[in-house]
């Protein structure tokens, strides 16, 4: 191998190695990491006012997502991870604005800021302990959350995102920005309160929702029920219509069936009627025949006989008339004598009647005379006449009084006095009759009798023979009425 070839190969190798040596000093940062290059001197600057000179930290180069040439040994490159870190934050027993104790679970997304100042600030604090970011920040955010909760009410924490975000931003400004950290997001995941505060918050709404649901259910049920009932009603109506139709049809069919059933008997009856009418005709014919037979057999002979009898009677009548005429003629001839006889008889009767009338008149005048005389006598002997009349009447009274007894068929007397009670009864009746007379007529019969016995100065009545016979008891009304028999 010639030295020249070795030299040429060496040149090539040299060039490659040189390029590598240069390129390896060029560092490229990823999109989520920052390079902090230290070791170079910062720029010297002089404040024009105070005149103080200061060296800024521009020697500290911050590179995000780019390349940088790091001079070995002179400069140092540090890497800071910019990616987000999820930090769970939990607070127990934080007191809210209105004193409700609450427990909150949240999550925070924290990252190192992307600007140069934040990277520098974060590098100072966390470069050698980047895993500690989560731990430190967790403590800080717990305190911050507690402070935020203390300034807000539970309802606002739950509902007012803007207010909560504003509070969070304020807290982050106070605690995180100085460390170069950015709070990308901070959200409450869960909030519970000691006691039933949150449940009580929800209870009115739940009650209202339940009420609405119940009302809706009830309304729906009512509507359904109404619809069902309406449907049933319509069904019932339809059924009623159906039944009516069926009944109507049944009536019609029954009528038709009845008619059909009756048709047989009716036809039978009609046939019977026909038969009967036919029979009637037969009977009529029969009757006519019989009539004719009778005509021929009986009536005609009867008529003949009658005619014969009539003829005979006529003949007899004529004969009798003739005979009567003859008799009449004979009677007329004899009547003359008869009339004479009759008139003589009538004359005799008339004369007899006249005599009788004269007799009656004479008798009447005599009676009138007698009555006149009797009246005069009465006038003269008033009391005597009245007494006589009374005495004439008395037997009738007594008879009337004893009438009840006379009607008795069989009498059994039970008395201590024996049968004398009966006669006492009769006398009692008579006495009562006297009393009755005196009380009704005002005539004191007893008195009258006494007077009669005392003054016997009155003349005797002019009655020639006044039969003062008192009829026996039991004879009915056979009293004399003072009738005077006139005998010729």
């Amino acid at each position, binding site marked *: 191998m010639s030295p020249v070839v070795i030299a040429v190969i060496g040149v090539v190798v040299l060039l490659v190695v040189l390029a590598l040596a*240069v390129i390896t000093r060029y560092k490229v940062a990823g999109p989520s990491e920052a390079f902090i290059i230290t070791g170079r001197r910062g720029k010297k600057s002089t404040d024009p006012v105070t005149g103080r000179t200061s060296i800024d930290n521009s020697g500290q180069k911050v590179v995000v997502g780019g390349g940088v040439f790091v*001079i070995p040994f002179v400069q140092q490159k540090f890497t800071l991870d910019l990616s987000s870190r999820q930090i769970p934050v939990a607070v127990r027993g934080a007191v809210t604005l209105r004193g409700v104790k609450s427990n909150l679970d949240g999550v925070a997304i924290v990252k190192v800021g992307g600007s140069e100042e934040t990277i520098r600030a974060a590098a100072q604090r966390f470069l050698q302990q980047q895993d500690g970011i989560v731990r430190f920040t967790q403590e800080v955010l717990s305190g911050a959350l507690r402070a935020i909760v203390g300034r807000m009410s539970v309802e606002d924490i739950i509902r007012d995102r803007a207010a909560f975000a504003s509070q969070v931003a304020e807290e982050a400004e106070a605690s995180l920005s100085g460390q170069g950290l950015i709070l990308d997001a901070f959200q409450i995941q869960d909030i519970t309160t000691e006691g039933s505060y949150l449940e009580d918050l929800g209870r009115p709404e739940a009650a209202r929702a339940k009420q609405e649901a119940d009302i809706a259910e009830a309304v729906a049920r009512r509507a359904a029920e109404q619809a069902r009932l309406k449907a049933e009603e319509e069904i019932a109506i339809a059924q009623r219509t159906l039944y009516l139709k069926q009944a109507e049809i049944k009536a019609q069919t029954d009528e038709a069936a009845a008619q059909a059933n009756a048709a047989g008997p009716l036809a039978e009856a009609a046939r019977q009627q026909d038969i009967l009418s036919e029979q009637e005709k037969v009977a009529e014919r029969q009757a006519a025949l019989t009539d004719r037979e009778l005509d021929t057999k009986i009536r005609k002979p009867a008529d003949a006989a009658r005619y014969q009898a009539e003829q005979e009677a006529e003949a007899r009548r004529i004969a009798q008339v003739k005979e009567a005429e003859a008799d009449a003629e004979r009677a007329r001839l004899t009547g003359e004598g008869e009339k004479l006889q009759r008139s003589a008889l009538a004359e005799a009767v008339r004369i007899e009647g006249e005599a009788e009338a004269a007799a009656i008149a004479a008798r009447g005048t005599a009676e009138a005379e007698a009555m006149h005389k009797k009246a005069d006598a009465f006038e003269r002997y008033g009391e005597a006449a009245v007494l006589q009349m009374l005495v004439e009447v008395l037997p009738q009274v007594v008879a009337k009084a004893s009438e009840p007894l006379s009607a008795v068929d069989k009498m059994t007397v039970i008395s201590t006095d024996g049968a004398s009670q009966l006669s006492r009864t009769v006398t009692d009746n008579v006495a009562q009759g006297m009393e009755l007379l005196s009380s009704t007529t005002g005539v004191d019969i007893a008195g009258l009798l006494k007077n009669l016995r005392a003054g016997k100065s009155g003349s005797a009545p002019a009655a020639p023979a006044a039969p003062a016979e008192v009829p026996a008891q039991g004879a009915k009304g056979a009293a004399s009425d003072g009738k005077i028999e006139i005998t010729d």
Partner: protein
Amino acid sequence: MTLFLGLGIAGIALLVLSLIFDGILEGLFGGALGGFFDGLLSLPVIAGFLSMLGFGGAIVLGTTGLGTVAAIVAGGLAGIVAALLTWKFSRVLMRDQTDATPRGDDLVGTSGSVVTAIPADGYGEVLLRLGGQTVKFAAKSSTPVERGTEIWVEAALSTTSVVVRPVER
């Protein structure tokens, strides 16, 4: 000839060692001479110069009939060229500026929108565009600002909070 090759191999070995033990050998030179010439005498440059000198000298010596002096001169020139190239390359990489890391002062004048309404006396939240990325900042304002309003950033209060005012068009 052997000397030249030895120089070259030694330079390569030095570089490999510097690669393996990153920065240790760097201190031998950079630590002492750091600051001068802005990395002109850094280890890769010196090692490159030596190695190139050796290999260049060896090549000239082996290929041409010139003497050792001529070989040294030629190797030196080649070494200088290599050293310069290395230095230039390093300078280029050093000067290569990526996007500057955003600073708080860069916020002033940027526009954004409110994501949480800003109360009169408290913090709201605004989304700002900073260095091509959207960042959420806590924001204060002299007047209450409704959510969704477009705002300007007036000042940076801290690394995470700004003062804003609504845009009046």
